[in-house]
């Protein structure tokens, strides 16, 4: 069965790029542009993986994580962001992120690799 991935990324081009690649890899992709939209979508749809950008308007990634965790959901989350966000990486992991990725440096292949690896470990 096709796995579904939720892409949460506010930049149009990147959002589109990630979605395109993942679709080509055979995943079902839902894409939203901020944490608020993500929470709403997750009320009705189930996904197997979340790709989460940290810096977003309306509700940023960290806030989303908190709320998401509060709902005690167990979907694996790959967080990607950059050095400059004043992230507390530890907090992000504590909030349940499976992987923390540097956005700017993941080529499509690498992204796909991590996605697949995460899904596989989830299955085990």
């Amino acid at each position, binding site marked *: 069965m096709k796995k579904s991935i939720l892409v949460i990324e506010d930049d149009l081009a990147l959002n589109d*790029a990630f979605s395109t690649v993942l679709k080509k890899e055979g995943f079902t992709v839902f894409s939203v542009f901020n944490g608020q939209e993500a929470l709403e979508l997750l009320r009705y749809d189930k996904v197997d993986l979340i790709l989460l950008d940290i810096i977003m308007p309306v509700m940023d990634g960290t806030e989303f994580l908190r709320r998401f965790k509060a709902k005690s959901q167990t979907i694996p989350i790959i967080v990607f962001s*950059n*050095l400059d966000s004043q992230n507390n*990486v530890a907090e992000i992991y504590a909030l349940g992120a499976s992987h923390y990725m*540097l956005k*700017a440096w993941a080529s*499509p292949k690498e992204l796909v690799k991590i996605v697949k690896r995460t899904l596989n470990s989830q299955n085990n």
Partner: protein
Amino acid sequence: MLLSYLVAMNQHRNNQQRAEASLTSGIAYLEQTLFRRMSSYAEILRSGASLARISGAMDRKQWHDFIQDLDVQNRYPGTRAFAYAAYVPEAQLSKHEQEIRSSGDEDYNVTPIGSRELYVPVTFAELAEPSESDQTFGFDLYTDPERRAALIAARDSGEIVATDPIVLQGDLDKADKPAAVTIYYPVFSGENKPENEAERRARIRGFTFAALRVSDLIVGLFGQEALNNPAAGLQLQAITADNERKEIYSSPSFNRLKTQEGVHIRTVPLTVHSKTWEATVVIASSASSSFAQNPWVLFFGGFVISILVAALLFMLMINRLIRTMASEEIKVQQAKEELLSLASHQLRTPASGVKQYLGMVLQGYSGRISKQQKEILDKAYSANERQLEIIDQLLYVAQADAGQIRLEKKSHNFTKLVEEVVAGYEDEAASKKINLSFRRAKPLEIKADPRFVRMIVENLISNAIKYSYPGGSVNVVLEKQGNRIFLRVKDKGVGIAKVQHDRLFQKFSRIDNELSREAGGSGLGLFLAQELAVAHGGSIKVSSEAGAGAVFALQLPVFTKKPIYNKGKRRGV
């Protein structure tokens, strides 16, 4: 300053004028006071003469009462003696002596004893110092040349005559013989005043006189306190019969002031009962004015004030200038930081986008591409990587400048961290057919910011992989030496020429070699990796030769704290 100068000059002129005025008035006062006293003496002597004439045979008691009534001590302080001397030709000497002896003074003798034509012995006297009676009574004034001259002049003129400076009998035995003066008034027998010299000589009976130490007189007239004034001085000199000047008084400050600079000095003649004295008065010009009127004070004060004001204004100006400059600088700095941060952020997103799209094409997500196409796209991809690297560095620099990079040091297991990073690169190494190995080490605790040390390790390992040839190997060795941890990443790749070593660690630098176009990288240059290492108190060193691979050694201090509790054993609190 100019103002204070002018004011000072004006004040100086005022001071000068005032000093001159003081001098004039001081001298006038001196003259008047002296004149008044001398007049008083004259009156007293005249009254005494009248008494002597009227009472015929005067006795001591009469003289005493007369003088007592005058309240001499209080009203004429400084007078040494008021006395009467009889004019005794030799023929009448013994009669004279007997008369005086029988009137109560049994020891009366005319001294010096000897035969002379004429004697003028002190017959009655009221003395300021009664202890001097012995020397005084009976002393023949005529034997002393200065007194004689005055006596003769008084007799012949019928007027009061003052002596030249003499030493009083009572002071003869003193070391410092104070200058004194006696003033004589002739007493004639008969009723009317004699009209000529011959008559006077015939009718002369005696003299009333006042004896005074000049210093006592002056002190009595003006008071010692006034005379002690350090800024004013008085000197009296008598002009003798020989036309010599003899000092008879000088106030304590006189000699010092006389030779001082900027003093006002004046000499005036004073007539003292037929004699001429010279009074010299000296005033220090600032003495006549208060401190606030001293021109030097004014000038200096004005000078100082003007300097202070100037300095204050200057400081205020400079302060304003600095503050403006500083705020300008801060504004510029802030603008710079904002621009840098903004630009980097804004640049990064589209640059990431380019990476994704180029990557998609290169990595097969848009169908086959020709070799030619791949070549070209590879270059584009590589250039984009470079972009992203630089943007990262810019952002780091901006953050560091703004003080936003804060190391959050935590004690953590460095070995585990290295293991994780190595694991993360396994796939990439495998895809390049590079053998990546990590020599297992025991857990090593370090106190560092895990985010940043991770990045350093990632940078070193990714570089090693990037610059290795396919089929090569990358070895990671971790060990602890003393207080330091060493992580050595060794590759057998393209290497770096010795001359390039310095450039390696510079900002935005990239050594161009055949492998540097490859994809990959952790987003930090060696520059940043080294910065972070140094920020932890460590360093990154390279040893490499061109074509002979490289060893990058990261050194970090341990900074671990010994645990207080050691496996259940308490080691003290």
